[in-house]
């Protein structure tokens, strides 16, 4: 922008935008850059190799996954020893590899390689110190004077490591409450406060299971029977009355939910205990929407009998339970 008026106009335009469903609430202003080339430098996790991978490409400024899919030869990768991090010569090799498909930068390759070696080592250090799952600079701008400038960046921190980055978490929370833009789904935010593993979806059948795989399968079964899952909620091991209550209450906060499918593999847990927990939760929360419970485990017959007497539909097979809940929640069922 050349003038304050122009800057104001542009800022206003950006502030009225909606980017991938997130309304823009603030605009960051920076000194303009002379751009000779836009590069990409990033670090992410390579699950197959069980290492972090440093990715460099001369095709910066674009979505790197798209570049990787369409022109994989323009992407160069390095998998550093996790105890040593990337060494200078490895970073130079990475830079020369990435520049081999960018003839226009051939003359600058020497300068770029040494600049990238220090940038890459610094970025790797940052990724490790912050427990980043993704840490990228895109675009990394090369200016005519040969300087490298991080023009935009992205950082994703491992949730499992949050306990050693309380300061960063607090900073993010403060930023978000300052501009009211957490961008987080309100149901998922509530679930987090309740300590529940919950993902909000847009269907009508509430789903609760114990164990991630079993809960995912619960959603799959609902879909297979022609229903649409409203959520994913894994109550984890040791299902007890309090957990059942908390989970049921959470799922029913979503007004789209017409009924709930609870799928519990008992293991060591006793079926009669789980049943009592669900019945108590239903009574205390005055739930009138249909509940279908499928459970196995010790004392499962006793559990099913208790549910039946309390007017909750019990099931032995998960498939049958899915069919029942989809029947009970479809349009015009009640």
């Amino acid at each position: 922008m050349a003038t304050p008026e122009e800057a104001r106009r542009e800022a206003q335009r950006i502030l009225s935008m909606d980017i991938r469903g997130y309304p823009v609430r603030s605009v960051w202003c920076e000194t303009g850059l002379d751009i000779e080339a836009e590069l990409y430098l990033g670090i992410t996790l390579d699950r197959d190799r069980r290492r972090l991978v440093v990715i460099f490409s001369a095709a910066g400024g674009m979505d790197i996954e798209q570049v990787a899919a369409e022109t994989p030869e323009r992407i160069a990768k390095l998998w550093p020893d996790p105890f040593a991090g990337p060494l200078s010569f490895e970073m130079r090799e990475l830079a020369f590899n990435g520049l081999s498909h960018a003839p226009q930068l051939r003359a600058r390759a020497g300068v770029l390689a040494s600049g990238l070696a220090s940038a890459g080592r610094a970025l790797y250090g940052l990724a490790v110190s912050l427990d980043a799952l993704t840490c990228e600079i895109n675009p990394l701008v090369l200016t005519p004077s040969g300087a490298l400038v991080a023009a935009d960046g992205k950082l994703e921190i491992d949730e499992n490591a949050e306990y050693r980055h309380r300061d960063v978490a607090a900073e993010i929370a403060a930023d978000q409450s300052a501009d009211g833009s957490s961008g987080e789904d309100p149901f998922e935010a509530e679930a987090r406060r309740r300590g529940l593993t919950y993902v909000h979806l847009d269907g009508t059948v509430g789903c609760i299971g114990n164990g991630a795989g079993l809960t995912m399968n619960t959603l799959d079964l609902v879909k297979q029977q022609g229903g649409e899952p409203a959520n994913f909620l894994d109550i984890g091991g040791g299902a007890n009355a309090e957990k059942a209550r908390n989970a049921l209450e959470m799922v029913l906060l979503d007004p789209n939910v017409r009924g709930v499918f609870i799928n519990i593999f008992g293991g060591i847990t006793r079926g009669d205990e789980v049943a009592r927990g669900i019945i108590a939760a239903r009574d205390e929360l005055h739930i009138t929407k249909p509940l279908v419970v499928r459970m196995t485990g010790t004392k499962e017959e006793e559990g099913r009998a208790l549910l039946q007497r309390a007017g909750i539909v019990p099931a032995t097979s998960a498939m049958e339970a899915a069919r029942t809940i989809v029947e009970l929640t479809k349009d015009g069922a009640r």
Partner: protein
Amino acid sequence: MSVLVDRESRVVIQGITGREGSFHTEQMRAFGTNVVAGVSPGKGGGAQNGVPVFDTVSDAVRATGANVAGVFVPPAFAADAIMEAAAAHVALTVCITEGIPVHDMVRTTELVQRHGVMLLGANCPGIVTPEQCKVGIIPNHINVAGPVGIVGRSGTLTYEVIQGLGQAGLGQTTSVGIGGDPVLGLGFTDVLRRFAEDGETRAVVMIGEIGGSDEENAATWIREAGFDKPVVAFISGRTAPPGKRMGHAGAIISGGTGTAQSKIDALSAAGAAIADTIEEVVRLTGERLGRRVVAGS
């Protein structure tokens, strides 16, 4: 026969004095596992659940000849516990702990490899060879000995399959839970290789889920190695939206990779029978073994 653990396994439990460690040590001993030692730094010299407790894994190994470790240590200390077992040359470490930071696991799996030992997990339910040895938290009463090898990511789904097969009269050689984290020790292919070498395993059930490409890599291995035992595969997470973690840290579709369909296509192309439900896993496994099966639940 079996894979990875059997009645010769001598097990040391790290974190034996904790709530989970102590409870599951009791369960493992009730199963018949030969738990020879426990480790709890600072509590060496004592005993827990009738098992001698040591300060370090290397003390425990020296005194008892332990060759399998079970880790029941909180997430902030679990990676260190795995590395301690690896440095003490424990042949197999089974880590149950959920929530270990990914960067810790990157360094840990590297160190495990350098020591030439094996890691199962983390964030896994463990491993069972029926009538011989259990390390982990798989419920005792569902395991029955027989010809099927099971390898899965998810705990409860693996239990469902074990129970479903058992009720249909189909027991297991060994059931192996590899875990739901993005960075793991043994993967599907590592376990399939062992089932390939095990004479008594006559069919394999694979329980996969969205995220990563370990199922696809296993499919490639099945084709290239000419693995000739029947494989029945079950993949959960068909309805999972991209970009959302579905409970397990590793269960996420990102950048178009890790979808259920990609895994189903790869395994199907490798000749695996794809089951949509647990009942179908049981029926298809029975069929592949030449038995007619009516699923119990």
